[in-house]
């Protein structure tokens, strides 16, 4: 067992874990954060995407011990404390960017990372930016639309902020 200390979704947590425990298993099994899901075993699908120190990673492809000391953000704390949704969440609902919803946590977390890096992407940039996330329901059409719409929402919000 190895002791790890992390900050997950704005809470400090500490546990003894087996070194072989994957970050995604730690989130799901130790912390009960089942919002992050496992879709494959080869790191292709991206359903388990979370943010590690502010950047998107596939949490099935990180050991919990490797994340010792890190800040982890998951889908479960993307909305504000008062329940106000993140613009990317708003956009996914507004544009029907999900159907079964299994890929959605990873898709949203990757979209947030993408927009952090590139606040006004082209359709092509969105498509390439999501190449690490598989969806079987939507054909990606409305996911891409959602991310482009989220970019608009976030730009609008930042403009409003600047004007205030």
């Amino acid at each position, binding site marked *: 067992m190895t002791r790890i200390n992390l900050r997950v979704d704005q809470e400090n947590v500490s546990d003894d874990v*087996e070194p*072989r*425990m994957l970050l995604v298993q730690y989130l*799901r099994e130790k912390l009960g*954060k*089942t*919002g*992050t*899901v*496992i*879709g*494959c*075993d*080869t790191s*292709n*699908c991206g*359903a388990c995407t979370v943010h590690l120190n502010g950047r998107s990673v596939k949490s099935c492809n990180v050991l919990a011990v490797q994340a010792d000391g890190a800040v982890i953000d*998951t*889908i*479960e704390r*993307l*909305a504000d404390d008062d329940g106000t*949704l993140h613009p990317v*969440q708003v956009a*996914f*609902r*507004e544009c*029907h960017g*999900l*159907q*079964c*919803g*299994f*890929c*959605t*946590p990873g898709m*949203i977390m990757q979209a947030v990372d993408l927009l952090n890096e590139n606040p006004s992407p082209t*359709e092509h940039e*969105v*498509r*390439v930016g*999501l*190449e*690490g*996330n*598989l*969806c*079987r*329901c*939507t*054909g*990606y*059409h*409305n*996911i*891409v*639309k959602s991310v482009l719409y989220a970019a608009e929402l976030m730009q609008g919000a930042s403009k409003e902020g600047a004007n205030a």
Partner: protein
Amino acid sequence: MTAVQDAPAASPEIGRDRRRKEDQRLITGRTRWTDNISLPGMLHMAIVRSPHAHARITGIDLDAADKAINIYDVFDGKKLQDTMGVLVNAWPITPEQQAPTHYPLAVDRVAFAGQPVAVVVARSAAEARDAAELVDIEYDVLPAALDLKEAAEDKVLAHPDLGTNKVAFWQLDSAGQGSGRAIDEVIAEARDGGIVIEREYRQQRLIPAFMEPRSVIVDPTGEQITMWSATQIPHITRFLLAATTGVPESKIRVIAPDVGGGFGGKLQTTPEEWITWAVARWIGKPVKYTETRSESLVSAHHGRDQWQRLTLAATKEGRVTGLKVDLLADMGAYVGVVGGGVPVLGAWMFNAIYKWEAYQFNCTPVLTNKTWVDAYRGAGRPEATYAVERLMDELAVEVGMDPLEIREMNWIKHEEFPFTTVAGMTYDSGNYEAATAKAKEMFGYDALRAEQKERRDRGDRVQLGIGISTFTEMCGLAPSRVLGQLNYGAGGWEHATVRMLPTGKVEVITGASAHGQGHETAFSQIVADRLGVPFEDVEILHGDTQVSHKGLDTYGSRSLVVGGEALVLAADKVIEKAKPLAAHLLEANVEDLEFGNGRYSVRGTDQGMGIAEVALATFAAHNYPEGMEPGIDAESTYDPINFSFPHGTHLCAAEVDTETGQITLRKYVCCDDIGNIINPLIVSGQVHGGIVQGIAQALWEEAVYDDSGTLVSGSFVDYLLPTAADTISFEIDHTTSPSTTNTLGTKGVGEAGTIAATPAVVNAVVDAIRHLGVNDIVMPMTPERVWTALQGGGRGTATVEAAEPHFEGQEDSR
């Protein structure tokens, strides 16, 4: 005018692009996937699977595993033989059908690589997996039937005891059933001065690859044994658990919580469910099994996998007179719950939207030593549509006509509906002319044809092709009597209950079992309109047999056209049931009441009361008429009177890099006619997703086996699902010919895109390079196959049956 009548009518919910009720929990991670559920004292199961395609089990040593840390128990097939039940085929397509007994855990022989042979139950999933590696199984390897055509010749038997690999022979013959002429006659006529086109097409083996891996939990500690399962069919599962394991149905509760996609792949009763059931009951504690993706790809059923031998007869002008279809359909090692019925569903679809004189469909499902094959999105209909839409393009070339014109020459005109086809189905409504005209306009058909010619003339490195697919399909499985005639093991009805709560809110129970479709939203819209209550006040309950005791679940684009109609009938019953009470309270005659916008009004007066008030009065039951019970809830079981037949025109422009064989999608438009639309947003999602699955069959996906029967494309590294970066945005639109077979006028849309898209893409690619001597490319059209075809190497080489070793050979690396 009274005040009541002056109130603006609530805007109708049907037809609105309501945002989905389901989304809030899904976008915030507040979901209940089966694998998210954890019960006190729950144990975890790991499965040891056969590495061999066909072998006799000569010894199983479970001792080492049993002694491992935190192991509760270990099982092989012999130990569970009396308690695990069997997995059944619910659709024996002929009375003589030959199907092997399918034990959930192999007893003495394995028939495909990946078949469960032993299980280990431990306190944690990790420990179960550790101990599973200690199970030692000895096999005596047997010859395996792997190639479909060879298997059909019984060269090697997949199940030696059966004496044959052929499950059954099923035929539909237009002369035999009186729906048309004899096929041999029209082919003979065509050979004499007409056109005969003979082709053999391959429908490769696909894997549904729903995103949520299957998971099951069985809790045997309650009065009812509860199973949570990532399934499309909780009701059928409950029935079959009772039927095969001897537990009374009343003691079984099956719950399908949030289910992450199915596409037919979760239309199955699975070995994993049945084993977990048996093991949990044996141990007496809750047991969970969640598959890995690799396990899912090798053990959840596959789809398609057919060889299609086709003979099309036409006049020299291009009028099709008949089609003969000979299908070989690979069932894999066992006949699944729908099994041979899947290819048979294609029987009524090969004639598609066309008017022919003769038609014959012959189908032989065949057993092989590979993963079993069952329903995958479209189930029989994509295969049929592919064949006929490819053939129509070939015919157009033969006649020298535009492929759209040849279709128009042969299709059913809109004024001819209802139309009884050569296969014997009566199409309710449609307008192929209108959908095609709209699609053509959206596509910019003439401009793209001009560009194609220009590039061809210039000898451009990148050639452009246009692919057409004018498809129809049959939705709304199905009238129960029809299913009975086909030996299907169940009916085709659907059930709904509408419960009026005292506060005026409405609980609706449906027997449909959504796994991503958005039923909670669309069904709320239907009920809100019918009862005149706010959309937000309707709660849809489903997927738990304790709440929804009766239903036939979700598959075959049936939920709206059958389940939706049951909702309408149940809601109407509520309105009728509440009427005497409303009249009583309003001190009026029942005959003088009318219902609209959620209110009962006394005709010719300004008196009235809302249905919510009636619900509260019913709850209080202080004052209700003699002879009436104080209850206005209602239920309905709707049995459809016919299938519905949506259709559409899909147009695809694809570019082919003649140097590399790489295919790039340039443009894709479609105009579907799915009857009346409840929620256009949800419909668009179904169409987009369906199209990409159809495109993926054309371009990327294939389950490939090596010559020892190992699934080579056994992970997402080798089974290629497209990403956002590989696909394009689509332009979709609709024409509307309301269905005449249900009151909502809906037709079903769940499978349309998948059925239509595959031939559109293949037709586009072949069209791009036909002038270079190519008239077919085997799916998936890999760049290598396209390039080989361009080198004059035929329609494509067989896939090399090997994966790259990205995750192997690691021992010596640093």
